[in-house]
Protein backbone atom coordinates (compact mmCIF):
# COMPACT_ATOMS: atom_id res chain seq x y z
CA UNK A 1 0.00 0.00 0.00
CA UNK A 2 3.04 2.30 0.19
CA UNK A 3 2.85 2.65 -3.57
CA UNK A 4 -0.72 3.82 -3.18
CA UNK A 5 0.26 6.48 -0.73
CA UNK A 6 2.67 7.92 -3.25
CA UNK A 7 0.05 8.01 -5.95
CA UNK A 8 -1.81 11.27 -5.78
CA UNK A 9 -5.40 11.57 -6.84
CA UNK A 10 -5.73 14.03 -9.66
CA UNK A 11 -7.47 16.96 -8.06
CA UNK A 12 -7.91 19.10 -11.14
CA UNK A 13 -9.39 16.27 -13.15
CA UNK A 14 -11.82 15.11 -10.52
CA UNK A 15 -13.10 18.59 -9.76
CA UNK A 16 -16.67 19.24 -10.79
CA UNK A 17 -15.66 22.15 -12.95
CA UNK A 18 -16.15 23.18 -16.54
CA UNK A 19 -19.13 22.75 -18.79
CA UNK A 20 -19.30 20.02 -21.44
CA UNK A 21 -16.35 17.71 -21.11
CA UNK A 22 -13.44 19.75 -22.37
CA UNK A 23 -10.54 17.63 -23.48
CA UNK A 24 -7.20 18.52 -21.97
CA UNK A 25 -5.19 19.51 -25.03
CA UNK A 26 -1.62 18.46 -25.68
CA UNK A 27 -0.75 20.70 -28.62
CA UNK A 28 -1.69 20.15 -32.28
CA UNK A 29 -5.32 19.94 -31.22
CA UNK A 30 -5.03 16.31 -30.17
CA UNK A 31 -6.44 15.43 -26.77
CA UNK A 32 -3.81 14.48 -24.24
CA UNK A 33 -3.89 10.83 -23.30
CA UNK A 34 -3.59 9.53 -19.78
CA UNK A 35 -0.53 7.50 -20.77
CA UNK A 36 1.31 10.64 -21.95
CA UNK A 37 0.49 12.49 -18.76
CA UNK A 38 1.58 9.73 -16.44
CA UNK A 39 -1.99 9.11 -15.34
CA UNK A 40 -3.62 5.77 -14.75
CA UNK A 41 -7.34 5.29 -14.57
CA UNK A 42 -8.57 2.51 -12.33
CA UNK A 43 -10.41 0.06 -14.58
CA UNK A 44 -12.79 -0.80 -11.78
CA UNK A 45 -13.82 2.44 -10.11
CA UNK A 46 -12.57 5.04 -12.65
CA UNK A 47 -10.50 6.96 -10.12
CA UNK A 48 -7.55 8.67 -11.81
CA UNK A 49 -4.09 8.47 -10.27
CA UNK A 50 -0.94 10.36 -11.09
CA UNK A 51 2.49 8.72 -11.22
CA UNK A 52 1.19 5.44 -9.89
CA UNK A 53 3.46 2.55 -10.84
CA UNK A 54 2.09 -0.24 -13.04
CA UNK A 55 0.44 -2.85 -10.84
CA UNK A 56 -0.06 -0.62 -7.78
CA UNK A 57 -3.31 -0.95 -5.85
CA UNK A 58 -6.02 1.66 -6.41
CA UNK A 59 -6.38 3.75 -3.25
CA UNK A 60 -10.14 3.81 -3.57
CA UNK A 61 -11.19 0.27 -4.49
CA UNK A 62 -8.00 -1.76 -4.22
CA UNK A 63 -7.93 -3.01 -7.82
CA UNK A 64 -4.53 -3.30 -9.51
CA UNK A 65 -3.78 -0.35 -11.77
CA UNK A 66 -2.67 -1.03 -15.33
CA UNK A 67 -2.16 1.41 -18.19
CA UNK A 68 -3.61 -1.09 -20.64
CA UNK A 69 -5.40 -4.40 -20.24
CA UNK A 70 -2.70 -6.96 -19.67
CA UNK A 71 -1.68 -9.19 -22.58
CA UNK A 72 -4.61 -7.77 -24.48
CA UNK A 73 -3.37 -8.60 -27.97
CA UNK A 74 -2.13 -12.12 -27.22
CA UNK A 75 -5.28 -13.01 -25.30
CA UNK A 76 -7.59 -11.59 -27.95
CA UNK A 77 -5.74 -13.49 -30.69
CA UNK A 78 -6.01 -16.75 -28.76
CA UNK A 79 -9.75 -16.36 -28.14
CA UNK A 80 -10.33 -15.20 -31.69
CA UNK A 81 -8.56 -18.22 -33.21
CA UNK A 82 -10.48 -20.56 -30.90
CA UNK A 83 -13.76 -18.90 -31.92
CA UNK A 84 -12.88 -19.17 -35.63
CA UNK A 85 -12.19 -22.89 -35.22
CA UNK A 86 -15.48 -23.45 -33.42
CA UNK A 87 -17.30 -21.50 -36.13
CA UNK A 88 -16.93 -24.46 -38.52
CA UNK A 89 -18.66 -27.17 -36.45
CA UNK A 90 -21.19 -24.55 -35.35
CA UNK A 91 -22.34 -24.17 -38.94
CA UNK A 92 -21.76 -27.70 -40.22
CA UNK A 93 -23.15 -29.85 -37.41
CA UNK A 94 -26.87 -30.12 -36.72
CA UNK A 95 -28.13 -27.79 -34.01
CA UNK A 96 -31.54 -29.37 -33.72
CA UNK A 97 -32.93 -32.86 -34.31
CA UNK A 98 -36.66 -33.21 -34.92
CA UNK A 99 -38.28 -36.63 -34.60
CA UNK A 100 -41.87 -36.76 -35.77
CA UNK A 101 -44.28 -39.15 -37.38
CA UNK A 102 -42.75 -38.24 -40.71
CA UNK A 103 -39.26 -39.30 -39.70
CA UNK A 104 -36.16 -37.69 -38.31
CA UNK A 105 -34.87 -34.36 -39.52
CA UNK A 106 -31.54 -32.81 -38.64
CA UNK A 107 -31.25 -29.03 -38.91
CA UNK A 108 -28.13 -26.93 -39.11
CA UNK A 109 -28.35 -23.19 -38.56
CA UNK A 110 -28.50 -22.47 -42.27
CA UNK A 111 -31.04 -25.18 -43.02
CA UNK A 112 -33.23 -23.62 -40.33
CA UNK A 113 -32.98 -20.31 -42.14
CA UNK A 114 -33.84 -21.98 -45.45
CA UNK A 115 -36.85 -23.63 -43.82
CA UNK A 116 -38.23 -20.24 -42.76
CA UNK A 117 -37.49 -18.72 -46.15
CA UNK A 118 -39.22 -21.51 -48.06
CA UNK A 119 -42.22 -21.48 -45.75
CA UNK A 120 -42.68 -17.79 -46.44
CA UNK A 121 -41.48 -16.18 -43.19
CA UNK A 122 -38.94 -13.94 -44.93
CA UNK A 123 -38.57 -11.54 -42.00
CA UNK A 124 -37.84 -14.33 -39.55
CA UNK A 125 -35.44 -15.99 -41.98
CA UNK A 126 -33.58 -12.69 -42.33
CA UNK A 127 -33.52 -12.19 -38.55
CA UNK A 128 -32.05 -15.63 -37.83
CA UNK A 129 -29.65 -15.41 -40.76
CA UNK A 130 -28.40 -12.09 -39.39
CA UNK A 131 -28.19 -13.07 -35.72
CA UNK A 132 -26.79 -16.56 -36.20
CA UNK A 133 -24.69 -16.38 -39.34
CA UNK A 134 -23.81 -12.80 -40.27
CA UNK A 135 -23.21 -11.39 -36.79
CA UNK A 136 -20.70 -14.08 -35.70
CA UNK A 137 -18.93 -13.82 -39.05
CA UNK A 138 -18.89 -10.04 -38.78
CA UNK A 139 -17.56 -10.25 -35.22
CA UNK A 140 -14.76 -12.60 -36.19
CA UNK A 141 -13.63 -10.47 -39.13
CA UNK A 142 -14.05 -7.16 -37.28
CA UNK A 143 -12.04 -8.37 -34.31
CA UNK A 144 -9.40 -9.69 -36.69
CA UNK A 145 -9.07 -6.25 -38.27
CA UNK A 146 -9.04 -4.49 -34.88
CA UNK A 147 -6.35 -6.69 -33.33
CA UNK A 148 -4.19 -6.84 -36.45
CA UNK A 149 -4.32 -3.05 -36.83
CA UNK A 150 -3.70 -2.42 -33.13
CA UNK A 151 -0.76 -4.79 -33.17
CA UNK A 152 0.82 -2.86 -36.05
CA UNK A 153 -0.04 0.49 -34.39
CA UNK A 154 -1.71 1.47 -37.61
CA UNK A 155 -3.13 5.00 -37.72
CA UNK A 156 -5.60 3.84 -40.41
CA UNK A 157 -9.20 5.00 -39.79
CA UNK A 158 -8.92 5.13 -36.02
CA UNK A 159 -12.30 6.68 -35.49
CA UNK A 160 -14.05 4.07 -37.62
CA UNK A 161 -12.21 1.31 -35.78
CA UNK A 162 -13.35 2.77 -32.46
CA UNK A 163 -16.93 2.82 -33.74
CA UNK A 164 -16.54 -0.76 -34.94
CA UNK A 165 -15.49 -1.85 -31.46
CA UNK A 166 -18.48 -0.12 -29.86
CA UNK A 167 -20.76 -1.81 -32.39
CA UNK A 168 -19.24 -5.20 -31.51
CA UNK A 169 -19.98 -4.69 -27.85
CA UNK A 170 -23.63 -3.94 -28.60
CA UNK A 171 -24.43 -6.67 -31.13
CA UNK A 172 -22.30 -9.48 -29.69
CA UNK A 173 -24.93 -10.75 -27.26
CA UNK A 174 -27.66 -11.09 -29.87
CA UNK A 175 -26.06 -14.12 -31.50
CA UNK A 176 -27.14 -16.11 -28.43
CA UNK A 177 -30.59 -16.07 -30.02
CA UNK A 178 -30.32 -19.50 -31.64
CA UNK A 179 -29.05 -21.11 -28.44
CA UNK A 180 -32.17 -19.90 -26.62
CA UNK A 181 -34.47 -20.99 -29.44
CA UNK A 182 -33.05 -24.52 -29.44
CA UNK A 183 -33.13 -24.69 -25.63
CA UNK A 184 -36.80 -23.69 -25.57
CA UNK A 185 -37.85 -25.97 -28.40
CA UNK A 186 -36.14 -29.01 -26.90
CA UNK A 187 -37.69 -28.21 -23.53
CA UNK A 188 -41.12 -27.74 -25.01
CA UNK A 189 -41.54 -30.31 -27.76
CA UNK A 190 -41.29 -33.64 -25.94
CA UNK A 191 -44.27 -35.61 -27.14
CA UNK A 192 -43.04 -39.16 -27.33
CA UNK A 193 -43.76 -40.75 -30.70
CA UNK A 194 -45.62 -37.74 -32.02
CA UNK A 195 -43.02 -35.02 -32.11
CA UNK A 196 -39.78 -34.60 -30.25
CA UNK A 197 -37.04 -32.02 -30.61
CA UNK A 198 -33.58 -32.51 -29.14
CA UNK A 199 -30.55 -30.24 -29.22
CA UNK A 200 -27.71 -31.19 -31.58
CA UNK A 201 -23.97 -30.97 -31.00
CA UNK A 202 -23.81 -27.94 -33.28
CA UNK A 203 -25.53 -25.75 -30.71
CA UNK A 204 -22.74 -26.39 -28.19
CA UNK A 205 -20.17 -25.30 -30.78
CA UNK A 206 -22.34 -22.32 -31.61
CA UNK A 207 -22.63 -21.30 -27.95
CA UNK A 208 -18.86 -21.61 -27.71
CA UNK A 209 -18.43 -19.25 -30.68
CA UNK A 210 -20.66 -16.65 -29.04
CA UNK A 211 -18.94 -16.88 -25.66
CA UNK A 212 -15.44 -16.91 -27.17
CA UNK A 213 -16.08 -13.88 -29.40
CA UNK A 214 -17.61 -12.01 -26.45
CA UNK A 215 -14.56 -12.84 -24.33
CA UNK A 216 -12.30 -11.79 -27.20
CA UNK A 217 -13.98 -8.41 -27.55
CA UNK A 218 -13.83 -7.94 -23.76
CA UNK A 219 -10.13 -8.75 -23.63
CA UNK A 220 -9.35 -6.38 -26.49
CA UNK A 221 -8.30 -2.97 -25.20
CA UNK A 222 -9.86 -0.27 -27.43
CA UNK A 223 -7.19 2.17 -26.28
CA UNK A 224 -4.63 0.18 -28.28
CA UNK A 225 -6.32 1.50 -31.41
CA UNK A 226 -5.26 5.02 -30.47
CA UNK A 227 -1.80 4.30 -29.10
CA UNK A 228 1.03 5.89 -30.99
CA UNK A 229 4.06 3.72 -31.61
CA UNK A 230 6.29 4.73 -28.73
CA UNK A 231 3.73 4.46 -25.97
CA UNK A 232 2.19 1.27 -27.18
CA UNK A 233 5.55 -0.37 -27.79
CA UNK A 234 6.67 0.44 -24.27
CA UNK A 235 3.49 -0.95 -22.96
CA UNK A 236 3.64 -4.16 -24.93
CA UNK A 237 7.04 -4.80 -23.46
CA UNK A 238 6.04 -4.18 -19.90
CA UNK A 239 2.91 -6.23 -20.10
CA UNK A 240 3.92 -9.27 -22.13
Amino acid at each position, binding site marked *: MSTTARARRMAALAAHAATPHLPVRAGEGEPATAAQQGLIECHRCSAVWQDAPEGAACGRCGARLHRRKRQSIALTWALLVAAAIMYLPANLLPVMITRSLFGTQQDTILSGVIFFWVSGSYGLAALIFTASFLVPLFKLSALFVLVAMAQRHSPWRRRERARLYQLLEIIGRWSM*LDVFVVALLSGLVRMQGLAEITAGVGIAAFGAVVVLTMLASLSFDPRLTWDTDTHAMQDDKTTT
Partner: protein
Amino acid sequence: MVCEGCDAVFRRPALGRREVARCPRCGTELARHHGLQQQRILPLAVASLILFAIANLFPIVEIELRGLHSQTTLVGAVVVLSGEGMSLVAMLVLATTLLFPLAQLLILCWVLVPLARGRRARGFAWMLALLQSLRPWGMVEVFLLGVLVATIKLSGMATVIAGAALWAFVALTVLLTVVVSFDPRGLWDLAFPADEEAAA
Protein backbone atom coordinates in the same frame (compact mmCIF):
# COMPACT_ATOMS: atom_id res chain seq x y z
CA MET B 1 -11.55 11.57 -15.97
CA VAL B 2 -10.15 9.32 -18.63
CA CYS B 3 -11.95 7.89 -21.67
CA GLU B 4 -12.01 4.10 -21.49
CA GLY B 5 -12.12 3.85 -25.26
CA CYS B 6 -9.09 5.90 -26.26
CA ASP B 7 -7.33 7.10 -23.09
CA ALA B 8 -8.05 10.81 -23.74
CA VAL B 9 -8.10 12.97 -20.60
CA PHE B 10 -11.13 15.14 -19.84
CA ARG B 11 -12.36 17.47 -17.16
CA ARG B 12 -15.36 15.93 -15.46
CA PRO B 13 -18.46 17.37 -17.15
CA ALA B 14 -21.33 18.86 -15.16
CA LEU B 15 -24.26 16.94 -16.57
CA GLY B 16 -27.94 17.81 -16.45
CA ARG B 17 -30.69 15.25 -16.18
CA ARG B 18 -30.72 12.61 -18.90
CA GLU B 19 -27.50 13.99 -20.31
CA VAL B 20 -24.78 11.64 -21.47
CA ALA B 21 -21.23 12.74 -22.16
CA ARG B 22 -19.46 11.06 -25.06
CA CYS B 23 -15.83 11.25 -25.98
CA PRO B 24 -15.48 13.52 -29.03
CA ARG B 25 -12.51 11.50 -30.27
CA CYS B 26 -13.82 7.94 -30.25
CA GLY B 27 -17.48 8.26 -29.21
CA THR B 28 -17.25 6.10 -26.09
CA GLU B 29 -19.65 7.01 -23.30
CA LEU B 30 -17.77 8.94 -20.64
CA ALA B 31 -20.40 9.58 -18.01
CA ARG B 32 -24.11 9.98 -17.55
CA HIS B 33 -26.13 11.98 -15.09
CA HIS B 34 -26.74 10.12 -11.85
CA GLY B 35 -28.63 12.62 -9.75
CA LEU B 36 -31.76 10.72 -8.71
CA GLN B 37 -30.46 7.42 -9.88
CA GLN B 38 -30.29 5.49 -6.66
CA GLN B 39 -33.75 6.60 -5.52
CA ARG B 40 -35.24 5.51 -8.83
CA ILE B 41 -33.21 2.38 -9.43
CA LEU B 42 -33.90 0.69 -6.11
CA PRO B 43 -37.70 0.39 -6.51
CA LEU B 44 -37.21 -0.73 -10.10
CA ALA B 45 -34.75 -3.38 -8.97
CA VAL B 46 -37.21 -4.69 -6.38
CA ALA B 47 -40.00 -4.74 -8.98
CA SER B 48 -37.67 -6.64 -11.32
CA LEU B 49 -37.03 -9.23 -8.61
CA ILE B 50 -40.76 -9.86 -8.23
CA LEU B 51 -41.21 -10.18 -12.00
CA PHE B 52 -38.21 -12.48 -12.02
CA ALA B 53 -39.96 -14.84 -9.64
CA ILE B 54 -43.12 -14.88 -11.78
CA ALA B 55 -41.12 -15.33 -14.98
CA ASN B 56 -39.39 -18.40 -13.64
CA LEU B 57 -42.14 -20.08 -11.64
CA PHE B 58 -44.79 -20.16 -14.37
CA PRO B 59 -44.63 -21.79 -17.79
CA ILE B 60 -43.51 -19.50 -20.61
CA VAL B 61 -45.48 -21.16 -23.40
CA GLU B 62 -47.74 -24.13 -23.72
CA ILE B 63 -48.29 -26.11 -26.91
CA GLU B 64 -51.17 -28.31 -27.88
CA LEU B 65 -50.86 -30.96 -30.56
CA ARG B 66 -53.72 -33.38 -31.25
CA GLY B 67 -54.97 -33.26 -27.68
CA LEU B 68 -51.51 -33.57 -26.16
CA HIS B 69 -50.29 -30.73 -24.00
CA SER B 70 -46.73 -29.73 -23.25
CA GLN B 71 -45.39 -26.72 -21.42
CA THR B 72 -42.08 -25.53 -20.12
CA THR B 73 -40.52 -23.08 -17.74
CA LEU B 74 -37.05 -21.68 -18.23
CA VAL B 75 -35.60 -24.05 -15.66
CA GLY B 76 -37.55 -26.92 -17.23
CA ALA B 77 -35.88 -26.28 -20.58
CA VAL B 78 -32.48 -26.16 -18.87
CA VAL B 79 -33.12 -29.49 -17.12
CA VAL B 80 -34.14 -31.14 -20.40
CA LEU B 81 -31.03 -29.79 -22.11
CA SER B 82 -28.71 -31.14 -19.45
CA GLY B 83 -30.54 -34.47 -19.62
CA GLU B 84 -29.67 -34.65 -23.31
CA GLY B 85 -25.97 -34.43 -22.54
CA MET B 86 -25.81 -30.71 -23.28
CA SER B 87 -24.95 -29.68 -19.76
CA LEU B 88 -22.53 -26.96 -20.89
CA VAL B 89 -25.16 -25.34 -23.10
CA ALA B 90 -27.69 -25.78 -20.31
CA MET B 91 -25.37 -23.98 -17.90
CA LEU B 92 -24.81 -21.20 -20.43
CA VAL B 93 -28.56 -20.69 -20.83
CA LEU B 94 -29.14 -20.87 -17.08
CA ALA B 95 -26.37 -18.38 -16.35
CA THR B 96 -27.21 -15.77 -18.99
CA THR B 97 -30.97 -15.72 -18.47
CA LEU B 98 -31.32 -16.50 -14.79
CA LEU B 99 -28.23 -16.49 -12.59
CA PHE B 100 -26.44 -13.41 -13.92
CA PRO B 101 -29.44 -11.05 -14.14
CA LEU B 102 -30.59 -12.27 -10.72
CA ALA B 103 -27.12 -11.70 -9.27
CA GLN B 104 -27.07 -8.21 -10.80
CA LEU B 105 -30.39 -7.33 -9.19
CA LEU B 106 -29.45 -8.76 -5.79
CA ILE B 107 -26.11 -6.94 -5.80
CA LEU B 108 -27.84 -3.69 -6.72
CA CYS B 109 -30.23 -4.07 -3.79
CA TRP B 110 -27.41 -5.09 -1.47
CA VAL B 111 -25.40 -2.01 -2.44
CA LEU B 112 -28.18 0.56 -2.81
CA VAL B 113 -30.13 -0.06 0.39
CA PRO B 114 -27.29 0.93 2.74
CA LEU B 115 -26.19 3.67 0.34
CA ALA B 116 -29.58 5.34 0.62
CA ARG B 117 -28.81 5.77 4.33
CA GLY B 118 -25.35 7.02 3.52
CA ARG B 119 -23.55 3.83 4.47
CA ARG B 120 -21.36 1.61 2.38
CA ALA B 121 -22.40 -2.04 2.09
CA ARG B 122 -20.07 -4.80 3.23
CA GLY B 123 -17.80 -5.92 0.43
CA PHE B 124 -18.75 -2.84 -1.61
CA ALA B 125 -15.69 -2.94 -3.86
CA TRP B 126 -16.10 -6.62 -4.71
CA MET B 127 -19.82 -6.30 -5.25
CA LEU B 128 -19.41 -3.42 -7.68
CA ALA B 129 -16.59 -5.17 -9.49
CA LEU B 130 -18.84 -8.21 -9.89
CA LEU B 131 -21.71 -6.02 -11.04
CA GLN B 132 -19.57 -4.46 -13.73
CA SER B 133 -18.23 -7.77 -15.01
CA LEU B 134 -21.70 -9.36 -15.08
CA ARG B 135 -23.07 -6.52 -17.18
CA PRO B 136 -22.40 -7.95 -20.67
CA TRP B 137 -23.57 -11.44 -19.72
CA GLY B 138 -27.19 -10.90 -18.73
CA MET B 139 -29.26 -11.67 -21.81
CA VAL B 140 -32.92 -11.59 -20.83
CA GLU B 141 -33.85 -9.44 -23.83
CA VAL B 142 -32.16 -11.86 -26.24
CA PHE B 143 -33.99 -14.71 -24.55
CA LEU B 144 -37.30 -12.93 -25.07
CA LEU B 145 -36.60 -12.67 -28.78
CA GLY B 146 -35.70 -16.37 -28.68
CA VAL B 147 -39.11 -17.14 -27.16
CA LEU B 148 -40.81 -15.24 -29.97
CA VAL B 149 -38.83 -17.03 -32.67
CA ALA B 150 -39.51 -20.43 -31.07
CA THR B 151 -43.21 -19.58 -30.85
CA ILE B 152 -43.42 -18.68 -34.52
CA LYS B 153 -41.47 -21.79 -35.43
CA LEU B 154 -43.98 -23.97 -33.55
CA SER B 155 -47.10 -22.12 -34.65
CA GLY B 156 -47.05 -24.05 -37.91
CA MET B 157 -47.25 -27.47 -36.31
CA ALA B 158 -49.10 -26.93 -33.03
CA THR B 159 -51.34 -24.54 -31.15
CA VAL B 160 -49.21 -22.22 -29.03
CA ILE B 161 -50.63 -20.63 -25.88
CA ALA B 162 -48.71 -17.86 -24.12
CA GLY B 163 -48.07 -18.54 -20.43
CA ALA B 164 -48.04 -16.08 -17.53
CA ALA B 165 -44.26 -16.07 -17.50
CA LEU B 166 -44.14 -14.74 -21.06
CA TRP B 167 -45.77 -11.46 -20.02
CA ALA B 168 -43.54 -11.32 -16.97
CA PHE B 169 -40.53 -11.69 -19.28
CA VAL B 170 -41.76 -8.85 -21.48
CA ALA B 171 -42.15 -6.54 -18.46
CA LEU B 172 -38.87 -7.75 -17.00
CA THR B 173 -37.03 -6.93 -20.22
CA VAL B 174 -38.34 -3.36 -20.12
CA LEU B 175 -37.44 -2.91 -16.45
CA LEU B 176 -34.02 -4.52 -16.78
CA THR B 177 -33.19 -2.25 -19.69
CA VAL B 178 -33.74 0.73 -17.40
CA VAL B 179 -32.01 -0.84 -14.39
CA VAL B 180 -28.98 -2.07 -16.32
CA SER B 181 -28.61 1.05 -18.46
CA PHE B 182 -27.48 2.92 -15.40
CA ASP B 183 -23.76 3.16 -14.95
CA PRO B 184 -22.41 1.38 -11.85
CA ARG B 185 -19.27 3.50 -12.08
CA GLY B 186 -21.33 6.43 -10.81
CA LEU B 187 -21.88 4.54 -7.57
CA TRP B 188 -18.22 4.82 -6.67
CA ASP B 189 -18.49 8.59 -6.54
CA LEU B 190 -21.67 8.35 -4.48
CA ALA B 191 -20.13 5.91 -2.04
CA PHE B 192 -16.92 7.85 -1.56
CA PRO B 193 -18.01 11.49 -1.31
CA ALA B 194 -15.30 12.37 1.23
CA ASP B 195 -12.72 11.15 -1.19
CA GLU B 196 -14.09 13.47 -3.86
CA GLU B 197 -14.03 16.48 -1.59
CA ALA B 198 -10.50 15.76 -0.48
CA ALA B 199 -9.45 15.56 -4.09
CA ALA B 200 -11.22 18.75 -5.07
